[in-house]
């Protein structure tokens, strides 16, 4: 018979991350804290592992022929890095990510650039069919180390209500 694991004697603090429906306020701005530098190797790996056939994102000679000093980072890796940085604040407790609107890429991103994300809550509404959840509408902005916008999009997220699913 297995022994119960002996626990340290002090108090235990169980951490939970992520917001519930009630925690979002229209107009709130979240400055997502991490930031992330994108390197050349992972950029090349993303383009090729997703079977992206555009040599602009994996061939320096071709990128130079199109006017780039370096091979740029594929826009969908830029979007995924900008998005990933937002998850702890926006959707770590979400039920589903519903979709994207008005996504643009105002500047190219190159290896060595550091991406920083922020998000504004544009709207929220309760689900029409299920009272335990709601839809939060946000606009996320990704900038580089100079504060220049590199990826902007809106997103709708299906989130749980704290009243129904607890949390502290």
């Amino acid at each position, binding site marked *: 018979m297995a022994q119960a694991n002996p626990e340290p004697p002090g108090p235990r603090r169980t951490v939970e991350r992520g917001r519930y429906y009630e925690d979002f306020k229209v107009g709130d701005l979240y400055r997502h804290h991490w930031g992330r530098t994108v390197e050349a190797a992972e950029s090349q790996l993303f383009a090729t592992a997703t079977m992206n056939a*555009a*040599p602009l994102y994996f061939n320096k000679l071709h990128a130079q022929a199109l006017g780039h000093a370096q091979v740029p980072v594929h826009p969908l890796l830029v979007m995924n890095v900008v998005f*990933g940085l937002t998850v702890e604040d926006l959707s770590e407790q979400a039920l589903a990510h519903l979709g994207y609107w008005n996504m643009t890429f105002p500047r190219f991103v190159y290896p060595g650039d550091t991406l920083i994300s922020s998000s504004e809550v544009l709207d929220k509404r309760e689900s029409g069919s299920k009272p335990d959840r709601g839809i939060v509408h946000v606009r996320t902005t990704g900038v580089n180390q100079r504060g220049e916008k590199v990826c902007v999009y809106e997103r709708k997220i299906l989130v749980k209500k704290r009243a129904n699913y607890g949390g502290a």
Partner: protein
Amino acid sequence: MTNERHRFTRDDNLYEDLTVGETIVHPRGRTVSDEHMFWTNVVLNTAQLHFNQKMCDDSPGTTFNGRRVVYGGIVFAFVAGLASEETEENALAQLSYDEGRHLNPVFAGDTLFAESTILSKSEDDPRLAALAKPRQAGVVKILLRGKNQRGEIVLEITRELAVLKREFRP
């Protein structure tokens, strides 16, 4: 040895080759494995329903019946990749995506396919002026759809690409 310049793209997917109204059925499918968890973690996506099976087991009502769902941003990238050789290989830039919806979940083991419908073309879009080679490309608006092995649409999204004209292909 030859001094002839090598060209790194095909010559059948330039601005002139994309026909408004046509739907391109892309040639390859792609089965998704547990690799999706690697990409979810690489981009710092911390939503556990993508990578914590115990949490999914304990919470079937708030996950996809206890199954680890593939993070949508990776579904998006895989579908775009499947569509890329016919649409993006000779693009100068991706200008926009809009009206994007994840209509069905994707799980490890599913096989993805892609189709692109050419919605419109424009040679005088003002955004072309900001590109490095402004008169060398046109804007193509495309409806990109990803389907699974049962033909169900998993992702649909519109996109605008600046695609090179034939005479300027490097």
